């Protein structure tokens, strides 16, 4: 008997009892659909986290100044300005694992453009900061090193600020006043969206750090060389922790801290936090997919059960086939192929349902679903393997029947 004959015979016998075949395949259908949908949920979650990491800038570290204590109350990080522009420069030049180091200062200010006003955060940055954050301008240009050095009155606006101060207009080239100081708008920042913690990253303006210190946010805390924090980009994700160690050692040395003194700064590793979150999502996905995989095994047991029934029902047919010359392996392959056909048909229906469910979840729950071709292949391959595995025992039972007994079977 050729394989084509076997497949045709298998499909014929599955058609004899369509309802039974469908019910038997249901376990596989659900299993495959669930694996595909679960992996799509997980991949979607992962891509969302990856997107957030992208929006922060990859391989990012933020160095914050230490805390001060006033009257026994510790004031929180940033309350004691300890970081300087030369710290930032040293981090950029002395630590090989670091590619860019950008000092920033931060404050809030009242903005006025024409008859509109807006209260927002002002960041004093260097051009390097935009590279570290992977934050290009949507229109206009970034300030030059000269402008940075000269404390020029130029400003980059975030999208939210543009929407509030220049509704429906192109702000580039126009003038706004920040705390009554006129600034020329030289560019609009690309939209970044929300941080993972829910604040609007586009509700900000950026001016050169020198300008910010000299004209806007100056004062005792940020006098001289001091900066608010330093944003650092490591060379690669593997080198992030090496960079962290390097910065820690360098700053302790530069700040002349003795071994028994605590750090007067702290280092936050945002992308690592997010990576950890992505990792836990991944583990969750694997867990969910494994639970779905269990359904495939349960489905396989269902197939074995129905195949055993089928072998018993068709004992006389098996006897006849043996009498007219079927060898053991002919009977064997007939029933294995039948079981595999059952599980593969279930697998195919499962693919359709799984993809359908993924699309439905994406629509209804507004969740990015990424259907993974590998997951589809693995699920169906596994379904086929389940068919072979659970079809084997009933098939062997059929192949080992005694032809005389089988022919006589009532």
């Amino acid at each position, binding site marked *: 008997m050729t394989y084509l004959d076997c497949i045709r015979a298998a499909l*014929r016998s599955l058609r004899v009892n369509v309802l039974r075949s469908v019910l038997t395949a249901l376990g596989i259908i659900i299993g495959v659909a669930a694996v595909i949908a679960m992996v799509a949920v997980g991949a979607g979650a992962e891509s969302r986290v990856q997107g957030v990491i992208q929006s922060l800038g990859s391989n990012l570290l933020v160095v914050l100044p230490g805390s001060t204590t006033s009257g026994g109350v510790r004031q929180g990080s940033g309350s004691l300005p300890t970081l300087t522009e030369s710290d930032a420069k040293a981090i950029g030049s002395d630590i090989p694992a670091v590619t860019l180091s950008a000092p920033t200062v931060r404050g809030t200010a009242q903005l006025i453009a024409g008859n509109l006003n807006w209260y927002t955060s002002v960041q004093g940055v260097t051009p390097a900061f935009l590279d570290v954050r992977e934050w290009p301008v949507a229109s206009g240009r970034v300030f030059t090193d000269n402008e940075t050095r000269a404390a020029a009155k130029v400003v980059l606006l975030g999208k939210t600020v543009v929407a509030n101060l220049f509704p429906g207009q192109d702000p580039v080239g126009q003038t706004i006043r920040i705390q009554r100081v006129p600034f020329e708008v030289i560019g609009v920042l690309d939209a970044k969206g929300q941080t993972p913690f829910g604040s609007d990253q586009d509700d900000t303006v950026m001016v050169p750090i020198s300008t910010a210190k000299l004209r806007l946010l100056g004062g005792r805390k940020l006098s001289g060389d001091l900066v608010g924090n330093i944003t650092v980009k490591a060379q690669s994700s593997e080198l992030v922790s090496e960079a962290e160690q390097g910065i820690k050692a360098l700053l302790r040395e530069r700040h002349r801290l003795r071994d028994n003194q605590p750090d007067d700064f702290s280092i936050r590793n945002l992308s690592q936090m997010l990576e950890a979150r992505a990792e836990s999502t991944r583990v969750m996905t694997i867990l969910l997919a494994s639970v779905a995989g269990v359904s495939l095994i349960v489905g396989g047991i269902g197939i074995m059960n129905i195949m055993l029934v089928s072998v018993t029902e068709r004992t006389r047919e098996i006897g006849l086939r043996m009498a007219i010359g079927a060898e053991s392996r002919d009977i064997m392959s007939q029933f294995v192929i039948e079981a595999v056909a059952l599980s593969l048909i279930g697998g195919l229906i499962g693919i359709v349902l799984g993809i359908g469910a993924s699309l439905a979840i994406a629509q209804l729950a507004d969740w990015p679903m990424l259907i993974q071709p590998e997951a589809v292949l693995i699920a169906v391959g596994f379904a086929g393997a389940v068919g072979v595995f659970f079809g084997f025992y009933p098939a062997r039972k059929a192949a080992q029947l005694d032809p005389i007994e089988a022919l006589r079977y009532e």
Partner: protein
Amino acid sequence: MAAPIIEIAGLTRDYQVGAQTVHALADLTVSIERGEFVAVMGPSGSGKSTCMHLLGCLDTPTAGRYVFDGVDVSRMNRDELAHTRNRSIGFVFQAFNLLPRATALENVELPLMYGRTEPRERHAKAAAALAAVGLAERAHHQPAQLSGGQMQRVAIARALVNEPAMLLADEPTGALDSRTGVEIMALFQRLNEQGITVIVVTHDAEVARYAKRILRFRDGHLVADERVARPTRAIEVLAALDAARESAA
């Protein structure tokens, strides 16, 4: 003269039932020539079924020697026996044993599938075998759409399709009305005249009278081996039946 198709010497088949040994067939020695038409007779429990299983290479003997078509089959394994059955023996059963969801043609093709014949050749041979039993126009009907006699003809076509050396029929008329039974026996006689060895296992003397030779079994022993001088001709019986029906009408 050619070697006999069946040469049996001291063939014995015992069954273990609990602690007891049942001698289903004891020390059978017989030989059957090519082209014979043999009826194997006996009441149930006489050993005729065991004899048929052994002759049909469905079972192996406890002791003795069975040379079928020049080959000793008494020590063959399962798959060798299957191969022998496929090539050299055509089976006809009381209950027809057709696959219910397959067409007549597909049923007839089945032995060729197991014989690994090419599909094209398979269709041609199966169609020819169906034509030989007078069912060419029913090739694409399923068994449920056929009468009992037609089903048995399909089964006979299936038995013939591999051009076997021997036809082995187990109560072939048992599930048929008497006229259809005679028609089937007429078909066997015609095939026998074309040179095929036919062995019919039956408990029915009506059926046995069409054979040229009758082997009678009782309690596991061959008790009589009779040559029939003038076997009844089934065609003549049919003609007589038709004549009787016409005169009644």
